[in-house]
């Protein structure tokens, strides 16, 4: 795994903790405990909801297999977050090209036939009992690489440099679109746009890029590139009633997701009491549709609190972006923020019927190893920038 290589590079120096009390600029004095607290709280809630939606259909069932695996993923993720925070982010600049090429290689391999296919998308490497999704790791690598590149250009993004930036984000994006994984591709669009905005791209370039992006989406939707079920998933949210997609799975999925969320009401049905959740009426509930379990069982109080926690995380990332001591730090945070906010909005929006259905996990909540690991590493980057804002 590309990320684990970071840890071997620089073990914790003996005495590093010893300096904590004396040096006011010591990174260890500036760890963002609010962010960590929020992440831990969301991940804990995620475990609870994953358990609720996978424990079995009978009220008496208590299947803990998914819960156990998710706890393991969170453990690995937390470790990876700590390791990511440990190494000064400025050192990642040197590592970025290597990591970027490694990720590109993995992406090529996964679409070339070595990857495993599930539901028409070739996005996984099957590693024993676990699955590795290179597109998840690619998000982190692209954020860091892009930050390095834009920081290197010192915010002077003329058309040539803009082209270079677009190439950095575009190549992995194209490979992921080949899988095809539209959701993750869109994450790259969000990350790219966010980082270009902060990185100093001209306003007219951003407008032009947006126009090109919109027309390309229109082109893709109307061309034969997408299978009809994919097109339905994307457009069903616009017209849930009359479209011929409504009768298909996509409409069903969105319907059931909203029924679950809506049925929760202000106070929810109570933990483990959600019938839509227990009886598996919402497909993919423990992964992409985990928010509906919160909605049904914990109601507006619970899901609103979750949204608030996620908002708090976004605010801490944004705040860190502002406080970063250099453009690289700001850009890394902006990349993570764009990725995080887009995923939260797309994922929750999709379960509530205001966004198209694309397979994007909800950070720290959705069941899954690669996505959990990515989310934690991303927070590790933010913690890294935050704690080193004075050093």
């Amino acid at each position: 795994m590309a990320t684990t290589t970071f840890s071997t590079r620089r073990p914790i120096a003996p005495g590093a903790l010893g300096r904590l009390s004396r040096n006011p600029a010591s990174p260890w004095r500036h760890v963002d405990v609010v962010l960590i607290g929020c992440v831990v709280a969301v991940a804990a809630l995620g475990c609870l909801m994953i358990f609720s939606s996978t424990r079995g259909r009978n009220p008496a069932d208590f299947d803990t297999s998914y819960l156990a695996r998710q706890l393991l993923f969170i453990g690995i993720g937390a470790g990876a977050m700590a390791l990511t925070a440990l190494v000064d982010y400025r050192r990642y600049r040197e590592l970025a090209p290597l990591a970027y090429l490694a990720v590109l290689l993995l992406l090529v391999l996964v679409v070339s036939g070595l990857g495993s296919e599930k539901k028409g998308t070739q996005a996984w490497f099957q590693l024993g009992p676990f699955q590795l999704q290179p597109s998840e790791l690619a998000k982190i690598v692209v954020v860091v690489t892009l930050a390095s590149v834009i920081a290197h250009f010192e915010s002077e993004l003329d058309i040539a440099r803009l082209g270079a930036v677009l190439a950095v984000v575009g190549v992995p994006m194209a490979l992921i679109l080949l899988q095809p994984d539209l959701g993750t591709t869109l994450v790259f669009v969000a990350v790219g746009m966010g980082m270009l905005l902060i990185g100093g791209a001209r306003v007219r370039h951003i407008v032009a890029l947006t126009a090109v992006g919109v027309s390309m989406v229109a082109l893709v939707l109307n061309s034969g590139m997408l299978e009809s079920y994919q097109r339905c998933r994307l457009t069903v949210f616009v017209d849930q009633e009359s479209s011929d997609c409504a009768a298909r799975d996509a409409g069903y999925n969105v319907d059931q997701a909203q029924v679950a969320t809506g049925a929760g009401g202000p106070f929810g049905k109570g933990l483990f009491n959600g019938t839509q959740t227990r009886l598996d009426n919402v497909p993919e509930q423990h992964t992409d549709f985990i928010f509906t379990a919160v909605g049904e069982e914990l109601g507006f109080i619970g899901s609103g609190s979750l949204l608030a926690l996620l908002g708090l995380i976004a605010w801490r990332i944004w705040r860190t972006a502002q406080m970063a001591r250099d453009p690289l730090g700001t850009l890394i945070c902006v990349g993570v923020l764009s990725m995080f906010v887009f995923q939260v909005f797309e994922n929750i929006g999709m379960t509530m019927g205001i966004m198209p259905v694309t397979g994007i996990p909800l950070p720290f909540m959705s069941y899954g190893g690669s996505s959990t690991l990515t989310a934690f590493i991303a927070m590790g980057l933010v913690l890294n920038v935050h704690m080193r804002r004075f050093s």
Partner: protein
Amino acid sequence: MNPDSPRLRLSVLGVVTFSLFAALFARLWYLQVMANDEFQVAAEANRIRVVAVEAPRGRILDRDGQVIVDNRVSVQVTVDRSVLGELEPEERHAVLSQVADGMARSGIPSTVEVLEERIADDRFSPYVPVPVAGDVPEDLKIWIDEHADELPSVAANRVAVRHYPYGQLAGHVVGYTGKISKEEVDSVTRELAETKPYTLNDEIGKSGIERLYESELRGTPGVRRIEVDVDGDPVRIIDEDPPAPGDDIVLNLDIDVQAVAEQALQGGLERARQRSCNNCEAPSVGAVGSTVVLDPHDGDVLAMASFPTFSPADLVDGISGTEWSFLNDRANRYPLNNWALQGQYAPGSTFKPFTAQAALKAGLIQPNTVIYDDGVYEVPGCRGDSCRFSNDNSKAFGNVDLRKSLTVSSDFYYYDLGARFWIDQDNVGGPEAMADRLKEWGFHADTGIDLPSEQSGRIPSPEWLRTYCDDVGTCSEDDRAWRTGKSVNMAIGQGEVLVTPLQLASAYATLANGGTRWVPQVVREVRDGVTREVKRTIEPKKAGTVEMAPDWRQAMIDGLVGVTTEEGGTALGAFRGFPSDAFPVAAKTGTAQVNNKAPTALFAAFGPRADPSFAVSVLLEESGYGGATAAPVARRLFDVLSGTEPLPPASPGGALPVDTQLSPDPGDVRD
């Protein structure tokens, strides 16, 4: 501020982020707070399936508590047409031939063709599996269950079906049940549909008591609420209202008397077929007949037989198309019909007591009025063949009073009454007077019996004729006019007069009790299906009264008792050897002429004279003279009703022994 300032741009990003979160909050508020109710309903609908659990149907018992109908479990083989329809032709054939082989191994001969015919039968609802075989042995069920994978669409289920301990006895009265049809689903009363809702696989009473007392007999289906998962598979039972059995219906019928009535009726028809019918226009057919026994005290129906019979048990597991066509074929005289109340016949001489009462009431005669009967009656002031009416064989009876007119069955006496009703209409109450008086006996109207499909018969009158002609539209001016001859014919129960055997028995019961017309009632009480407590008693219902002065009654009953006891009485032969001193029977024979067919043989009677407990009517279609073929059937009934011969307990289950040895043969009786 410089638009390129990173701070400003970061703020823009912050605002965008904030707006996106705000949008999520707004949508969440809408879904969970504003539209919560709607989604809650949807979630419950997702989760809960309500399944009806069929309840056992109530039983039907006779007046002594003998069980005529109850329930038992039958293993039924069904084929689901929707599943079968999706198979390839070869596959379909393979499945069905396997089923046919399996059935054959279990001793039920069948072929693919027979099965296909059953499956194609459109009498079964397309939404429920078609029963192709009922009462199959347990080993066939085991075989089908074990081979479920190889036999798509085929199932063997245990179902509760109607059970008839007495076989086909009283089949017309109790009726039969069957799968509810689409039309029946729509036609059940709202109250019944709400308290005992039907599903497409449910049984419903199709005829007889089963149909009329459907709302009592039907059990209240249980409701089971099941939680299902996304695949529709049951996860657990949430709660259940257990089914409640339907109410028991206790009949006024005495199953032992019913058995005798059915046996005697079949014996009478058998004998009619064997006898040659002298002077008849056609040979006797003896294919259709009916017998009714009423209690004159209250209208209780003690027995009601109709021939040809059918066995309700044959219709239990669904019936094959050929059997069903057999039951509905005119050539087989519609075995499902209850001719005792659906058949309408000219009553012939059995009608005479009613003409007599009408004439007495109109003042046309007194009981001792004597009319000279010279055998041939000519309508006054009319010449020609159409004005001449003769006794059977033109036999002259000489001086005839009311008593004798009944005993010897003088047509002449009644021709005269009929003619005078019309000719003297200004003195007797107008042109409708005769018909109106006769209708007081319950003719030309439903008796109100608690059985479906009753026919109301007909008493013709000038007004009726006009209405009839208006409806038909092909009457000539001559046809429309009422003539004396019509009244003359009507007086002896011929012409356009039609009665049902039930009406005839009811009218004789009215005569027997002195003029109170009771509604004939089959059902005695409704009992709770579980506690057996009486929930409702059906009280006798008075339908009307007929004026009957004591001296009229005296003369009429004298005359009618003479029929079975006096020399010259038309049923003396049939009642030879009967203990008439101890149990005098008042009776009247009837022989109604039918164009180009053997006459309808009728006999109506009641007894014992002092306090009549039984009123009986017997009618045999195309069977010759009433005294010769119908009277012996009643004689057999009176043998057991009077206690002269022991009343044999009806034999459960077994085939009905036909009573061909009706005793004694009355010889060649006229009328």
